[in-house]
């Protein structure tokens, strides 16, 4: 009886590891293409043993590609120019301008697009959460760019139906560490969603991520930069 149970547990583990290996590849259900399974990390905390055939996951039509997000003002994996930093000149200004951003066509089935700019290092109040420096929420799927200097709070500059927020304001705030401090890492993340989000105008990063969960039409696109020690 004991050995049968052990065998069963082992079998479930192997199946789980297949599932997890498949799930690591993609984030959400595509309109067509392979079936996507969300991993359950807590169920597979055991060494993987045995081999076996590889899961049959091949990219095909409708496979959720990662959208590409870039800026004409700086390189991916580069340094954010100082003009986009909040206190580059030792907190003289809190009115940085937002950088220009462009991205590729979202996957089919996308109803809204969210841009989030995140400071990865900062923790406030001893909490592990990253800091939301900018989010533009509920952009229509036809949106392919945000122009430089999107004015804080004024939805007139945003695509119809969209609004913006940061952890401190109703618009872009940008990096906080001054140019003389150690560099931080910043992410511009692009989420393509199957619905319009119903979140408050002062939504936090945690609330935003919770609202997004389960509604992505493909992988999130990521643009990576540092600021500000070597920024110009």
């Amino acid at each position, binding site marked *: 009886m004991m050995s049968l149970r052990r065998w069963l547990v082992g079998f479930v583990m192997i199946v789980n590891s297949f599932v997890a290996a498949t799930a690591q590849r993609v984030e959400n259900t595509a309109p067509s293409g392979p079936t996507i399974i969300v991993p359950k990390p807590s169920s597979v905390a055991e060494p993987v043993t045995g081999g076996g055939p590889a899961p049959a996951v*091949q990219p095909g039509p409708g496979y959720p590609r990662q959208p590409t997000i870039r800026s004409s003002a700086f390189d991916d994996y580069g340094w954010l120019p100082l003009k986009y930093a909040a206190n580059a000149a030792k907190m003289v200004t809190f009115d940085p301008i937002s950088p220009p951003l462009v991205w590729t066509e979202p996957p089919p089935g996308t109803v809204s697009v969210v841009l989030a700019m995140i400071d*990865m290092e900062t923790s406030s109040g001893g909490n592990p959460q990253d800091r939301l420096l900018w989010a533009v929420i509920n952009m229509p799927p036809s949106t392919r760019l945000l122009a430089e200097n999107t004015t804080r709070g004024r939805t007139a500059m945003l695509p119809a139906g969209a609004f913006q927020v940061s952890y401190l304001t109703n618009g872009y705030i940008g990096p906080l560490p001054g140019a003389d401090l150690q560099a931080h890492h910043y992410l511009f993340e692009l989420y393509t969603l199957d619905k319009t989000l119903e979140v408050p105008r002062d939504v936090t990063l945690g609330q935003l991520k919770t609202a997004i969960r389960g509604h992505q039409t493909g992988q999130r696109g990521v643009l990576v930069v540092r600021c500000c020690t070597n920024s110009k």
Partner: protein
Amino acid sequence: MNLNMLLSLGLMIGLGSTGSVLAEESTTPQLTLSSPAVKDMEPLPLKYSQTGTRPSIVVPPGMNNEAVNPPIEWSNVPSGTNAFVLLVVDHIDTLMWAVVNIPGSVRALPEGIPNGNESSKLPAGAFHRSFRSNGWIGPAARQNPEGRWTYYWKLYPLDKKLNVPEDASLDDILSAMEGHLTGNKAVMITPCCDGSK
């Protein structure tokens, strides 16, 4: 905009205190994460991937036994730090590696910590896991038909060890750390495996 306006904005929205904004102006060196084998913002060497130097589109379970973690070190630890958690997650929040309850006196992890928690290479009292193993699993060295895969390394300095089980999920670990960071996180970003060698 002057400081008063910022203060009132902060109060109005009820988010983020001005105290923490001002604290960030301190020039105290911040916690720094580095590695003699891996460079921040550069591709992870293939040796640390699931299949070593043999790229494949999909890695069958079991092949990950060959993966070794890179050596990692850190410095400028905030005062009051009694423990660390190191997390490696990919850009879609897959838990690639968690080393939980590293003692506060430790400043480095060696290369090639074996799966399981018995090895003397693992700091005393710590445990490690990935989303599907109890140790380093490493990126799948696929050719990434769906685009670049990005891996985030984050070191969390904590005022105490976490009371979480050894099969704790990423969400479990993040929740347990609430309110216990002694300062900013330290971060490295390594894409893999397009461009890796």
